[in-house]
């Protein structure tokens, strides 16, 4: 790790100020992605602004048909929160599948979404549930937010405050773990929203990050059944291929995970 200055923000205002004060400053949430990156000397921020004490980024509640999750909510909190378990059980389940106990006790939803790892779990949920990301500057719709691997709509100086999850009728996630990292090799989240529309978010498999599988959405909108998914296939051309699996395999897994997620909903 290169030497850097560590700062602890006590409020959102202070975090915004500190972030604006230094061109090379960086926010730190749970540090689960950031610290390994720093240790590998792949990033060299001048200042780290720790968000752990920023009250505005905390809290989980349901209000007006929306599950509001503070950006600094840890995966462990999401997984064990009675509010989440009741409102969107599929999301609590998704959080329980992230990393291991230690990671879940540090990593946060805001950090995960800001980082947008192409194999992270939450992006599939955010897309499927049509989540709104609230920052200190604006509200961003899920469809506008993800912009390819590790790329998001967040601008310089922008801090995620909370995520608004509209309560679905039902939703579920199924994940095929990467054998080494435990991230998603392919993860599919299906949500049937309050208005009856169906959205399918996919992570892990896409060659440009999380994406919506629109063919599956259309098919499920017509008939919310396993049969509807039969024969549907993600184009391997749009999938990642690497040392661990060829694109064809990931494309295939997206379909299998879709079926397994759907089975939980039927």
């Amino acid at each position, binding site marked *: 790790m290169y030497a850097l200055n560590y700062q602890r923000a006590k409020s959102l205002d202070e975090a915004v100020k500190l972030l604006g004060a230094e061109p090379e400053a960086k926010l730190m949430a749970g540090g689960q992605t950031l610290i390994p990156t720093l240790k590998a000397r792949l990033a060299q921020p001048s200042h780290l602004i720790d968000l752990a004490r920023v009250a505005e980024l905390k809290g989980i509640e349901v209000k007006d048909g929306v599950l509001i999750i503070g950006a600094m909510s840890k995966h462990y909190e999401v997984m064990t929160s009675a509010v989440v378990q009741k409102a969107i059980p599929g999301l609590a389940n998704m959080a329980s599948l992230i990393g291991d106990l230690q990671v879940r006790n540090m990593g946060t939803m805001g950090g995960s979404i800001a980082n947008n790892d192409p194999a992270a779990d939450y992006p599939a949920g955010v897309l499927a549930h049509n989540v709104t990301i609230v920052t200190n500057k604006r509200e961003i719709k899920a469809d506008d937010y993800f912009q390819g691997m590790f790329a998001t709509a967040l601008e310089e100086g922008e801090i995620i405050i909370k995520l608004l999850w509209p309560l679905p009728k039902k939703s579920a996630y199924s994940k095929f773990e990467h054998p*080494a*990292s435990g991230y998603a090799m392919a993860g599919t989240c299906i949500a049937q929203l309050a208005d009856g529309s169906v959205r399918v978010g996919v992570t892990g498999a896409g060659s440009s990050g999380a994406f919506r599988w629109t063919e599956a959405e259309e098919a499920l909108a017509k008939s919310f059944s396993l049969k509807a998914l039969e024969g549907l296939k993600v184009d391997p051309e749009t999938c990642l291929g690497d040392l661990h699996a060829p694109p064809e395999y990931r494309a295939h897994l997206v379909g299998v995970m879709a079926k397994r997620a759907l089975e939980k909903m039927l």
Partner: protein
Amino acid sequence: MQPSRREDLRLIQGTGHYTADWNQPGQLYGYVLRSPEAHADIVSLNVEPARAFPGVVKVMTFADVEAAGFKSLVGGVAPNVKGVGDSAMKKPFYPVLADKKVQYVGQAVAYVIAETAAIAQDASEAIEIEYSQLPPTVTVEDSLADGAPQLHADIPGNVGFVYERGDAAAVDEQFKRAKYTSKIHLESQRLIVNPMEPRACLAVYHADEDRYTLYSSSQGIVNMRNQVSTVTGIPQAKLEIIADDVGGSFGIRSTPYPEYMVSLLAAKQLGKPIKWVGTRTDSFLSDYHGRALELNGEIAIDENGRFLAFRWDDRVDLGGYAGGNGAFIGTNNLTITCGGVYDVAALYARTRLIYTNTTPISAYRGAGRPDIAFAIERLVDQACHDHGLDPVETRRKNFVKAAQMPYKTPLGTTYDCGDFAAVMDDALAQADWAGFAGRKAASEKAGKLRGIGFATFLEASGGGNTPSDQTAARFDAKGDVTIYCAAGASGQGHETTFISLFAKELGITEDGIGYRASDSNMAVVGNGTGGSRTLLGQGSSFKLLAQKVIEKATPHAAEALGVTADAVSYAGGSFSAGGKSVGLRELAKKLASAAAAHPFDCGAEGTFGVTFPNGCHVAEVEFDPVTGVAEIASYAAVDDLGNVMQPTLVLGQVHGGVVQGAGQVFGEHAVYDRESGQFLTASFMDYTMPRAATVPLAMKWRGHAVPTKTNLLGAKGVGESGCSGSLPALMNAVMNALRPMGIDNMQMPITAAKVWQALQASEGGAAVRKAA
């Protein structure tokens, strides 16, 4: 809850003493700059900018180690081992820091010493190196190809050694008379050893006595001190090596690494202790790698199903240099038991040792023995399949029988004892071999592919190149005793085992008995931990030591009891004569003085032979054809480890070995990019380690002891048998599940992606897909 081992409380509570826990006042910190290139000439190397960095004390390169007269790192076969045509092994000079050329990604190039570790690392980035890339070769295949890149100018064709063992003509004869033959090509892929504790060292120079202390993790100080001395020229008598707790070794901590040598040199030159603590990345790149063997076997069988001969033509990837024990594994260990548990007329093995632009190879749990056990049992299984022979009865027919013991193999190896048929029957009964059809049908119903496999294997354990295993006992002023040996533990629980053994032998309780290993001041020599030998070697020596203590104490007991020594008898911790008695402890306390050595102090030593632990492991594997995911549905093993001293520790060794075997079968693989020679699996994000859940919780095991007479305990080795049994048992189960799908061979690791792809391409797979 009481921990089951003496060392557990200390280790679990963080009060153990791993290498990085040692510190010395005024110490400086080292950082190794490693090669980012797989194969390149070093055109220029300018360390001045790093030297000028504030806080930097010294920057070392090849020039420094050359000026100090450092020799090549030690490796290669022993000088008396000759290859075909009486050839000697071609060993390139393996410099402690790279000289003019780098041969693999991660090779140590420069060593920066600074006031803090962070400064040393920062400064390393200022070093200016110009590399001129050369085409790399990262597989034996590519190294042997026409026009392959040449790693070492004096080793054309990259072949370091061609070794053979056995009688090629006799084997040819047997193949001529054979009714059936089968062959197999297998890869035991390159692995990262990944002990939990990354490598570290602390080097201290004591100027007043011109003496050195090296703190480093090791499996035994004798080899370590020997090789450090050979390379650096520091006389062994001036080199103290300290290793307390060691967080895993598996074979790669038996010999020293470059950091240790340069740290010793710098400690003297700067007059300050030098500390180096490696990262996990350093472990991935620069710890010796394991396995990396290719096995090609053939078997000849007569019309009655009797095995006639095995023929092997194996290829061994040494890495960029001959380091550690890579060459020993590729010659001796691959061949010593290359007929396994079978009584055959002829054996022949040839192995070629080949250089590639990869991290050098050394021992990894079993060091070639699991690999050959795996190959034999895969080949036997393949032959049974090819020719419709029953795998159980065919093995039984061909076993070396208990009545044939001691049995001399065609290679001259003598198996002293064993009852392979009894072990197999015991294992098959435990695994309910007979009930497999029912379980397979149930799996099929659930849409799964189930396979069963087993292996009857044997390995040689207990070798060692130090002529004897010494132990010593020292009594202190309180009459308490500390016992010593040279083999270092790295998780095995030596402290628990040896204190218990010593106490039992003396008939006393364990309190007041301390244990220390790897204390070079004690001048106790012996083999390091390795080759599953410590209990049978050092343990036997401890048994002798207890008897020595009694001998030493007897005259004093006689005096205390007022009788002559021959009137005294010893039992249950006490000496007695004529109705009077005195306890050993009591006597030890009485005779203790701070001023002089205790009269009971003594040493023992002995030389104990090779043993042949053997076993039969049975595995069932279930595949989900939809995803290709494998699950070990059941695992049941029986091992003949001779007499078992500590059942819990033995079970732990078996479990650990089986998990590592399962790791190799289903996930682990160190991969280099063929074109660039870059190392692709340098972190746990890409290198698949086995998890606790990789093996079933309900794994069954039991011992089937056929005690050996080659040591005083009747014990055989256990440390590596888990790998030797699990690799073939699991792979035979995998193939049993996949063969009906039209898949006849698959190389490890059996990843879900690979299985799915194979099923996509196979006819059986198409049928399964349709049904699913």
